[in-house]
């Protein structure tokens, strides 16, 4: 299976009044058609900037990017705006976190869907509208012929996200980037939207990059997963590998904050401390100030990305393999105790 | 800027009098360049900054602006000629064949109208035209809200009944063909002058009454009003039936009202307008005078009937003392007060009368060239002390002048208390008997050039009432009142001589005012304008004489 999107050593920094912010610092991954890559991390980990950089949607005056983004083997990082505009919406599409604000409130849904067609294809307005109705139907909007002329404020949050998905898929893209598509929605709607995306992925055979802070979402939809922290990928694996044998203490923390059906705890475990400042990141391993297993090397050495086990499992932890397994065993036990309590 | 004020009382007079007006002379000083024969044609464009004609109906109009416009359209029994200087102030029979024949008892005036005169619609001018003018002036159906007609009814027999709506005609006025006869309640030496006011110009005998005034009505003068759009403009065209000798140089006169005086000056400089009837901004006088020269081609200055003065409150200490009032007259710095108004704004004065008024003679009684503190202290006779209250309006120029006189008064030993009063309330406050002031700014502009209108009106103590006074010095001297009565009863040269003496007596022996400024009128015209003839009576050029062709 060949990767449709390959990202290598992607770096993005922003100039601000206070200094340079390294939002993305050497991220590499790839995703194949029909596959889903999950990118997981707290806010400020650089996951959203990664997706916006791929789409070329960063503010050009403030952001600089380097590295490589290959779409179907063609470099798309740093190409002209007009080339990017041709790619956006046709080969790569994106849906955003907040469906309440991501739709233009003064244009009808049909108009906005049709626009996505009309900016790329030389078809009649009628054809674009028919396609819009077709997509609305596919994403499960009832009475699409009638609702196509409604405005965003007349839809619920879940319905709006369906509309966003319809808009993203209307030109049959190769890659769909979904930036926290379910965060703003209630749990039931979340599940519906994820199932919808899964179904449509099968129909359209597209690659999905699912950006989330929620490992539960990853477990549900992703094939591969990259855990980001402080602008870097700290662990990268298949979903099975990650959940079976997570290698980075940060991933452990994320797993600890995951609600489980077998847990009786009222309160989920939080990772103590604050996400790192990207303006003045901690020295060495960016996670060391919050890491309960940190030792003397952590504040001084920047850990490289190293393999563990198979070729698909990578991590950035300075702990020796054995020490790490012990630590994970201890951590897992503690989590179970807490879960049982 | 100035309103003319109502002739306040009927003159008491004795004896049969003829040609009162001919004894009067006006001394307008500016002449302009009458020179060559003025070219005819073109449109004279007149701006009126910050003002409008209240009425263009001669039955209601009563302000200098409206009158100087109506002068170009009206035909009067007796009128002022378009002549510069003194000659322009002497009435001549216009529609009348001659000055009226007055009966022995001085109460019946008989005018004969010239034959062949026509209105702008071609209809003839007869005695009925002038009868109608008087009726329109007094009719309750005109209901003049400005109260302008309120005194004429007392002059003419039947006037009061007519004003009260009791009669349809004024019994004292009769018109038969070209004969107009007017019967007066009392002999009146100024009656001919009164007939020279714009209220009494010929109107067609069927001209209707109108409370709002008619914007246009046929007239018999050199021009006629073609249209008026109140608040915007007024257009005059030549009267095609006018055959008289008065000049009618422009084809049209277009008045644009409510202009801005700064922009208007630019328009005149650029030739987009010919003249601003409201005069240029005072701050520009000096620069205009320097650039264009005085009374040469474009910049003209002429005297007005207005006298500015400080009234000294004779009803209380310290100015109930003549010596102190004289001291004030020596102490106040007249040139400094004038300088605050800018160059050309007026002439220094220390008298009640102004040049042009019959009987005026320059006396130079006090310190006309500057304050004389030593002399002031000497005439006071004793050291001066205490606090004097200085009244002035809140305007910038009045406030500045008050500072000058307060400085002057301190120089002779007084303390001063500054009492600014808002402009709209100023004369009301000052005119209320018992007002708390010692020195107050005031000014007076005459209705017509008769010394009565200065001296008797402003200084007769018997007219002092509880409110609405104009005798701001609150001077009441039985001896002086009697002298004023005597002078008012005279006519001709005797009248002039009597008032001439009275002017001196008042300022020397009573000193109720510190007069300081005989105001000027200042005009600036576009380069193409010629034949500027200044009328001291209207304090404006004769617009019908201005040539733009």
């Amino acid at each position, binding site marked *: 299976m060949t990767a449709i999107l390959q990202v290598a050593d992607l770096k993005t920094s922003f100039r601000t009044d206070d200094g340079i912010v390294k939002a993305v610092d050497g991220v590499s991954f790839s995703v194949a058609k029909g596959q889903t890559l999950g990118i997981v991390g707290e806010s400020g980990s650089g996951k959203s900037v990664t997706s916006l950089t791929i789409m070329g949607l960063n503010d050009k005056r403030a952001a600089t990017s380097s590295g490589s983004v290959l779409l179907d083997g063609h470099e798309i990082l740093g190409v002209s705006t007009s080339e990017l505009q041709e790619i956006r919406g046709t080969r790569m599409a994106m849906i955003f976190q907040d469906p309440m604000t991501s739709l233009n409130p003064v244009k009808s849904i049909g108009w906005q869907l049709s626009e996505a067609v009309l900016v790329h294809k030389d078809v009649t307005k009628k054809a674009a509208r028919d396609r819009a109705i077709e997509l609305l139907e596919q994403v499960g909007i009832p009475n699409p012929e009638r609702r196509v002329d409604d405005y965003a404020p007349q839809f619920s949050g879940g319905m709006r996200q369906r509309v966003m998905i319809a808009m993203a898929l209307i030109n049959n893209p190769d890659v769909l980037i979904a930036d926290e598509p379910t965060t703003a929605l209630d749990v039931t709607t979340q599940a519906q939207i994820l199932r919808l995306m899964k179904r449509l992925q099968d129909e359209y055979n597209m690659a999905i990059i699912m950006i989330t802070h929620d490992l539960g979402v990853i477990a549900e939809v992703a094939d591969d997963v990259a855990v980001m922290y402080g602008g870097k990928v700290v662990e990268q694996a298949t979903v099975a590998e990650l959940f079976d044998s997570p290698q980075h203490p940060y991933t452990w923390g994320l797993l600890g904050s995951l609600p489980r059906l077998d847990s009786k705890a009222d309160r989920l475990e939080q990772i103590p401390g604050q996400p790192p400042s990207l303006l003045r990141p901690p020295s060495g391993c960016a996670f060391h100030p919050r890491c309960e297993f940190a030792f003397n090397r952590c504040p001084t050495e920047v850990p490289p990305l190293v393999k563990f086990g198979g070729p698909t499992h990578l991590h950035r932890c300075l702990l020796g393999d054995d020490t790490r397994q012990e630590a994970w065993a201890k951590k897992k036990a503690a989590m179970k105790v807490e879960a049982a309590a | 800027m100035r309103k003319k004020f109502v002739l306040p009382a009927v003159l008491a007079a004795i004896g049969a009098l003829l040609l009162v007006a001919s004894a009067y002379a006006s001394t307008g000083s500016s002449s302009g360049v009458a020179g060559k024969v003025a070219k005819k044609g073109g449109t004279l464009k007149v701006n009126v900054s910050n003002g409008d004609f209240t009425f263009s109906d001669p039955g209601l109009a009563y302000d200098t602006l409206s009158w100087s416009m109506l002068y170009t359209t009206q035909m009067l029994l007796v009128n002022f000629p378009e002549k510069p200087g003194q000659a322009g102030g002497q009435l001549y029979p216009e529609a009348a064949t001659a000055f009226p024949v007055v009966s022995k008892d001085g109460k019946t005036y008989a005018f004969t109208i010239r034959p062949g005169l026509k209105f702008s619609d071609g209809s003839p001018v007869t005695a009925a035209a002038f009868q109608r003018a008087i009726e329109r002036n007094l009719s309750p159906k005109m209901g003049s809200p400005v109260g302008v007609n309120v005194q004429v009814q007392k002059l003419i027999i039947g006037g009061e009944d007519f004003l009260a709506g009791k009669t349809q005609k004024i019994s004292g006025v009769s018109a038969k063909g070209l004969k107009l006869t007017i019967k007066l309640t009392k002999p009146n030496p100024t009656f001919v002058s009164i007939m020279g006011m714009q209220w009494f110009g010929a109107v067609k005998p069927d001209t209707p009454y109108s409370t709002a005034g008619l914007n246009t009505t046929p007239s018999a003068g050199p021009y006629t009003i073609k249209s008026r759009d109140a608040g915007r403009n007024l257009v005059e065209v030549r009267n095609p039936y006018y055959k008289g000798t008065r000049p009618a140089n422009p084809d049209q006169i277009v008045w644009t009202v409510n202009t801005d005086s700064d922009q208007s000056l*630019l328009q005149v400089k650029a030739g987009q307008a010919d003249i601003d009837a409201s005069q240029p901004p005072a701050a520009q006088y000096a620069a205009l005078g320097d650039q264009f020269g005085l009374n040469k081609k474009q910049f003209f200055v002429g005297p007005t009937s207005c006298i500015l003065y400080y009234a000294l409150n004779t009803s209380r200490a310290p100015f109930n003392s003549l010596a102190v009032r004289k001291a004030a007259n020596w102490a106040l710095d007249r040139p400094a007060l004038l300088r605050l108004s800018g160059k050309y704004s007026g002439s220094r004065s220390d008298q009640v009368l102004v040049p042009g008024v019959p009987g005026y003679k320059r006396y130079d009684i006090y310190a006309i060239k500057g304050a004389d503190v030593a002399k002031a202290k000497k005439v006071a006779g004793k050291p001066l002390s205490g606090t004097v209250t200085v009244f002035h309006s809140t305007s910038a120029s009045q406030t500045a002048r008050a500072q000058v006189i307060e400085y002057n008064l301190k120089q002779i030993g007084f303390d001063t208390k500054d009492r600014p009063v808002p402009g709209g309330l100023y004369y009301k406050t000052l005119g209320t008997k018992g007002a708390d002031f010692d020195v107050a700014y005031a000014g007076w502009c005459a209705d017509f050039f008769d010394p009565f209108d200065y001296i008797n009106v402003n200084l007769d103590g018997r007219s002092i009432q509880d409110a609405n006074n104009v005798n701001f010095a609150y001077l009441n001297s039985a001896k002086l009142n009697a002298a004023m009565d005597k002078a008012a009863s005279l006519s001709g040269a005797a009248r002039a001589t009597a008032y001439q003496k009275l002017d001196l007596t008042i300022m020397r022996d009573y000193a109720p005012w510190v007069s300081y400024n005989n105001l000027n009128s200042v005009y600036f015209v576009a380069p193409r304008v010629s034949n500027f003839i200044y009328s001291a009576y209207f304090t404006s050029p004769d617009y019908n004489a201005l040539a733009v062709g």
Partner: protein
Amino acid sequence: MFYFLVRRTLWAVALFIAATVITYLIFYIIPADPAKLACGRACTQQDVDRVRHFLHLDQPVWRQYLRFLWRLVYHQDLGRSFVNQQSVNQIVAGGAPVTASLVFGGAVFWLLLSIPAGIYSALKPRSIADRASMTFVLFGISAHPVWIGLILGYLVGFRLGWTPIAGYCDFFSPSFGSSCGGPVQWAYHMVLPWLTFMVLFAALYVRLIRANVMETLSEDYVRTARAKGASEPRVMVQHVMRNSMLPVVTILGMDIGLALGGAIFTESIFSLPGLGRRVIQAYNNNDLPVIVGIVVFSTIAIILFNLIVDLLYAFLDPRIRLS
């Protein structure tokens, strides 16, 4: 929509009564006597009383006010001027087109300048052009219309001679003797007044539009539009403009009232025979019927204009329409 109109109409009536009552009250609090002013300085008390009766000023204020209301409602008559007995209806009818020419023409001018300038500033913040336009904003906000008018009149009208210095021409059927008339002369004479309004108001609008456009540019739906591949011009026109102009429409509605105030100065400077000039004149003469007439007309005009703006807003913004 029906209730909206009913509510607005009731508001309008309340506003109208408040505006006229306040005008009446202020007029009577000012201790100046219009009868005395109309009569002249040398009037006797008897004459003043006569004039006062003629002008109905001898009645209590509330009766005068009711008289005014009755006449207005039953005869659509605003009365007559104290000073020259002119019909106030005619005064208002004569002045309104001039003021409308000034205000609406001025609005077109200031929008024509401020929309492009505001958008450009928003797209290129901190650029030279942005700084220049922000300097202009500061200048425009600080300057007084009289000063702007005098400077424009002097520089453009007098020194350069490109436009008339002052004056007005009718758009339709000029009155006799007016030196000019017709649309071209009308516009030619209005250029400087419009420019004055432009300097005065464009300043505020450049700021407003700049802020709105910048805010709208950061909206999620703009990012959505870019993500679907829309070109920058398309994003600007279809997504940014309409949304960022919505507040401008509201402010425009409110500023028409403000502009009527600005018209007082601008009309005075350029000798435009509009309502602002008339109201100043009436104020100087204590001419209550004219002041009240113009206040009444302006109030109605502002209320109506705001109603139109509200309806326009509802048309432009489905959120309002659908709620």
